[in-house]
């Protein structure tokens, strides 16, 4: 393919690459760089931009709202992550058995994944209604008085977590199913001849071989846990008394309700730092695990 002359090559680049370059520059690179610069300033869109160095970062780390959002995120991760990963893996293991109807089940579990967060949040807000919601009605049938869910600071996050698990579990299931398909079938057969129970077979063969999938799923879910916004915005607005406020919500509020563009930008870079740290830690762990496996 050396036949194209220098001039022809640059014409081709102008046609093929330039549109993408302009778009990426205007909507990614430029905003990212501007955001970093803005994070060191104080700016309300109306008065001139004021350089304040690391002032926003210092203020953010001491801001009770930021600390609460971080605590809320941690609560969210503790409730959401193990459940969605274990649940998705469990469903994938069941679906991986060659049973009739499994493609139908897989399709059903995936429906919430494609549905928009706003619609899902509305439905769950109604399901979780303390007086007339289906969930508290179901609980009452088995003799449990359901909590106030989204109206109760102690239970609101639990409601958000349940909703998010319900929406995302099909995604995790499908990713695990793809991972399971990569495991050669004769591996399992060989050990079942050796008299291993299904339980032993799972822990000695399936689980180690799924390690890359588990890492992938955990990383993706962790990253999305830091970016929770839609469901909280619709279901609780961050309340009651800030019990479900997230980092993204603080970015939204500070920028578009309080007009603190610099401060909001700084919070968005703190969010980036958290996500970056998690990704690096995950990669490091995976490399170490790969090594120890020899």
């Amino acid at each position: 393919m050396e036949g194209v002359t220098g001039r022809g090559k640059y014409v081709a680049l102008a046609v093929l690459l330039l549109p993408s370059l302009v778009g990426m520059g205007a909507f990614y690179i430029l905003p990212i760089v501007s955001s970093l610069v803005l994070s060191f300033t104080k700016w309300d869109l109306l008065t001139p931009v004021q350089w304040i160095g690391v002032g926003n970062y210092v203020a953010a780390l001491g801001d009770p709202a930021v600390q609460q959002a971080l605590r809320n995120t941690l609560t969210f991760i503790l409730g959401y992550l193990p459940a969605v990963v274990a649940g998705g893996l469990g469903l994938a293991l069941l679906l991986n058995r060659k049973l009739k109807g499994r493609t139908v089940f897989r399709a059903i579990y995936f429906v919430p994944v494609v549905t928009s967060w706003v619609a899902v949040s509305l439905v769950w807000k109604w399901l979780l209604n303390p007086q007339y919601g289906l969930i508290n009605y179901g609980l009452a049938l088995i003799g449990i008085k359901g909590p106030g869910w989204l109206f109760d600071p102690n239970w609101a996050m639990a409601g958000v977590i349940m909703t998010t698990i319900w929406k995302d579990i099909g995604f995790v299931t499908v990713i695990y199913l793809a991972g399971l398909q990569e495991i050669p079938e004769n591996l399992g057969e060989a050990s079942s001849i050796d008299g291993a129970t299904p339980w032993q077979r799972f822990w000695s063969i399936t689980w180690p071989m799924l390690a890359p999938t588990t890492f992938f799923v955990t990383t993706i879910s962790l990253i999305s846990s830091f970016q929770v916004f839609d469901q909280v915005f619709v279901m609780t607005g961050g309340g009651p008394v800030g019990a479900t406020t997230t980092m993204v919500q603080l970015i939204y509020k500070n920028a578009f309700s309080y007009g603190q563009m610099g401060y909001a930008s700084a919070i968005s870079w703190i969010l980036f730092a958290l996500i970056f740290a998690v990704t690096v830690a995950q990669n490091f762990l995976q490399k170490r695990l790969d090594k120890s496996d020899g």
Partner: protein
Amino acid sequence: MADRALRPGDYATWAVLGLGAVIMLLPFVWMVSTSLKTGDATFVMPPQLIPSAPTLANYSKIFAAVPMAQFLLNSVFVSVTSTVIMVLTCAMAGYAFARIKFPGREIIFYAYLATLMIPQQVTLVPLFVIMTWLDWGNTYQALILPSSFGAFGTFLLRQFYLRLPREVEEAAFMDGAGYVRIFFTIGLQLARPALATLAVFAFMASWNSFLWPLIITSDQSMMTLPVGLSFLNGRYTTDWNVLMAGAVIGTLPIIAVYVFAQKYIIQGLATTGLK
């Protein structure tokens, strides 16, 4: 893989999978059921799964109260347009990165990849400022353009073209065709499976996108479905039958797309997710 003979454990598996399916579907059934109820029937205890006197009043109420058809139209237009631009620009750029050698290629490609590390929320404030300066608030271009480009799709297509043998293209080169003509006559066709995967992702991301449209639209006539639904949420806080009618309208189109494109969506997701 053929289905094998049934074992006792299979019934237990079915029971668990069936229970799971009920949990996944019940919220949707409840959504439809509530949307067909009168105001009084909504709050009847015990709840009725099948409304005793079903009505479509909530749907007409919603179409009268807010420009629901406009929300739908905006969502379709914004999603389709940004998907088309995304697929085309990613394929062109992916082809260029894979086939054309030019100075700075590696650095530019790494800059693309670096944007994947940055969460979308970082760009929100400057994007809003830029759009305000351009006076693009409440416009289609503001809704469409920021979700029309992406490093993920460019990367996906670049990898595709790198793995693709060059023989077919070589013949065209011998006939004197340039990169651009070869891309549009051969490259685009060959990449159809990868393009379909990317299109499905781009469409779903754009269709369900909420935060950016929420920020950039205040005019009802420019709102997309998710923003319109969220607006309804603020207005009909306790009219659950009306809100559920809105949720049905917001859910049906994407579920229809899903039913038709199910294979592409699930397989595309499973294969690209792991690579």
